[in-house]
């Protein structure tokens, strides 16, 4: 199983011509060339990127998974991570949820004029660290600069290609009644870490985002449990509730949860109470839901809890034929409620 790798990357910022990104850095001319040579090609150096074609050319043997995601988070830097590692981990994890080992990623920036080189460099370093940790290579990319006021500092898009593990058979069609629902750790940490930094919210916590790459964890579980793992999904935006509603709808089965079993950090729970947010709908980044065959649930959980990304993993419910298409939760006091889709964003309440 994977262990937390301590990154000791020493990347002093190279000397750039400017303190901030200007429109010229996106012009495709000399400034772009210099920025890419000193800022991007050096730090992400690998044989495919070094080809400097319009695209990366490579061979892959096996069934391929392909995924893309865009990252527009504000603030860019938050406890536990920043937009850079988020952009790598997000796409790596999307591939992992397909049962694939991420291999190659594309990396595109849309930068707002005036973004500081210093911050850009911090983002690049963190992308490099996350790529090394996830063992993927950045093989192609793009940089555009938009006028001041037309963006929000920096947006990142990554797309990734990975090879599906031969033992993986992950699809919602595999899910059956009596399967067990497992969550890999404490819910809602990422969303609350971000909210605690937003303007106007002045509560002090040491809550950190859970952003991390899950590919090593997932691949070793697939190696061990094969097609008894029916379904995997990382509950990012919309949280646990939204993912479970999606699969309930797709499978026409009932998803039954026990609120007492859902793991949540005490501080996160407290912050949700204070802000009037339901943690079931709050975003996660380094978390996954697994639907597994009942017979392997206990050993799957034990294996996951040995992993650095699964210490707080828990069985939270089961799949049933009752209430097809719905998510039902037994409340802390033993009552029952429907857990529905969220409409729009969760908005803070009056009192």
């Amino acid at each position, binding site marked *: 199983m994977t262990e937390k790798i301590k990154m000791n990357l020493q990347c002093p910022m190279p000397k750039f011509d400017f303190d901030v990104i200007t429109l010229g850095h996106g012009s495709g001319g000399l400034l772009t060339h210099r920025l890419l040579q000193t800022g991007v090609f050096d730090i992400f150096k690998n044989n495919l990127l070094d080809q400097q074609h319009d695209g990366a050319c490579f061979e892959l043997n096996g069934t391929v998974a392909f995924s893309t995601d865009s990252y527009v988070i504000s603030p860019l830097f938050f406890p536990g991570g920043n937009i850079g590692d988020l952009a790598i981990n997000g796409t790596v994890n999307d591939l992992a949820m397909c049962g694939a080992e991420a291999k190659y990623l594309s990396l595109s920036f849309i930068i707002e004029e005036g973004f500081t080189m210093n911050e850009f460099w911090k983002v690049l370093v963190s992308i490099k660290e996350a790529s090394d940790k996830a063992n993927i290579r950045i093989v192609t990319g793009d940089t555009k600069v938009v006028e001041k006021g037309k963006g929000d500092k920096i947006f990142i898009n990554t797309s990734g290609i990975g090879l599906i593990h031969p033992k993986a058979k992950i699809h919602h069609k595999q899910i059956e009644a009596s399967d067990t629902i497992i969550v890999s750790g404490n819910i809602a940490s990422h969303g609350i870490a971000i909210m605690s930094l937003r303007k*106007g919210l002045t509560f002090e916590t040491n809550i950190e985002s859970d952003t991390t790459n899950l590919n090593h964890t997932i691949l070793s579980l697939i190696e061990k449990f094969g097609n008894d793992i029916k379904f995997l999904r990382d509950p990012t935006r919309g949280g646990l509730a939204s993912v479970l509603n999606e699969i309930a709808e797709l499978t026409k089965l009932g998803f039954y949860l026990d609120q007492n079993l859902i793991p949540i950090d005490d501080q996160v729970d407290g912050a949700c109470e204070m802000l009037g947010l339901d943690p079931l709908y709050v975003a996660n980044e380094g978390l996954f839901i697994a639907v597994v065959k009942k017979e392997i649930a206990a050993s799957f959980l034990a294996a996951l809890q040995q992993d650095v990304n699964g210490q707080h993993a828990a069985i939270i419910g089961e799949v049933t034929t009752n209430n097809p298409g719905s998510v039902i939760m037994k409340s*802390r*006091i*033993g009552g029952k409620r429907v857990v*529905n889709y969220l*409409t729009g964003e969760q*908005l803070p*309440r*009056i*009192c």
Partner: protein
Amino acid sequence: MKYLSEYRDSELVATFIQELHRITTQPWTLMEICGGQTHSLVKNGILAMLPKHINMVHGPGCPVCVTSISVIDEAVYLAQQPHIILCSFGDMLRVPGSKKNLLEVKAEGGDVRILYSPLEAITIAKENPNKEVVFFAVGFETTAPANALSVVHAHKSGIANYSILASHVLVPPAMEAILSDEENKIDAFLAAGHVCTIMGMEEYYPIAEKYKTPIVVTGFEPVDLLQGILMAVQQLEKGTYQVENQYTRYVQREGNRMAKETIATVFDISDRIWRGIGPIPQSGYEVNNRYKNFNARLKFNLHLPVAEENKECISGDIMKGLKKPKECPNFATKCKPEHPLGAPMVSSEGSCAAYYHYSNADSILI
């Protein structure tokens, strides 16, 4: 979580449920005043645990739901002005005005900001001396002290570019309006614990006496609610009509003296139109003459045409306890959170939203 888990204790809940089953001999209709209580009842699945004789109806204590459509229009108008930053609690943003809601104004480029406290609006006013900052001061007696304090603070600090659009409503006049309705069928009230934390209990004694109706000041957690229901049913079964306090950990008979003084410093009691219910005399707060420079209605000379409410929305009947959300023909069909006919479907304290999101135990098969 300490100080909360004690009030979500499943064994204590079971004890109260058992006792309720033991003592209830006939049908009783109880109204919980506050939308926060409604949500807790539905979200925790409490309604289905109660004896079938006990009928909970859901009161008007959702400030978002009762804010009149004309006031929403005022806020929308202010938010559309390029020199104004409109600050609001988050709940208000999805509430439909006669033409649009504040979220749409924000999407069109209006400067609408979601705040947790009106004091943050003061900071925004300081940071933006060339803009006018308006706080949309909505709420029952609960939020009035903080809103009043923001005005006092702005006055003392000489911040002239700050004002509030007040739409405060008061619980006791609404209770009287409900009790005096000829169709009223409410046997007892659970009063809102947080309102009474500020205002105390004294306003409720004459109401209990006049309408011979028990009133139990109740909190919001499952154990609070079940204890409050039990206390009310005990009174009903005995035939008494006292004002009792379940929420003793916060509520004192006289309330919070300083908070009440702050309210009285800034606000006068005024008539107010309640969305879905209509005008109720002396049922709200308006900024008084002394602080008139902080009254956004006067400052921006607001005289918008009075807007008509959507007649298809039966929120008035729901908030008076005459109907339940699922009895509305438009519930979850024509009226959904993404296209609401009325505010109770979009407010986080609205009873229609509670039924829609957590549905209702009657359809749950386990």
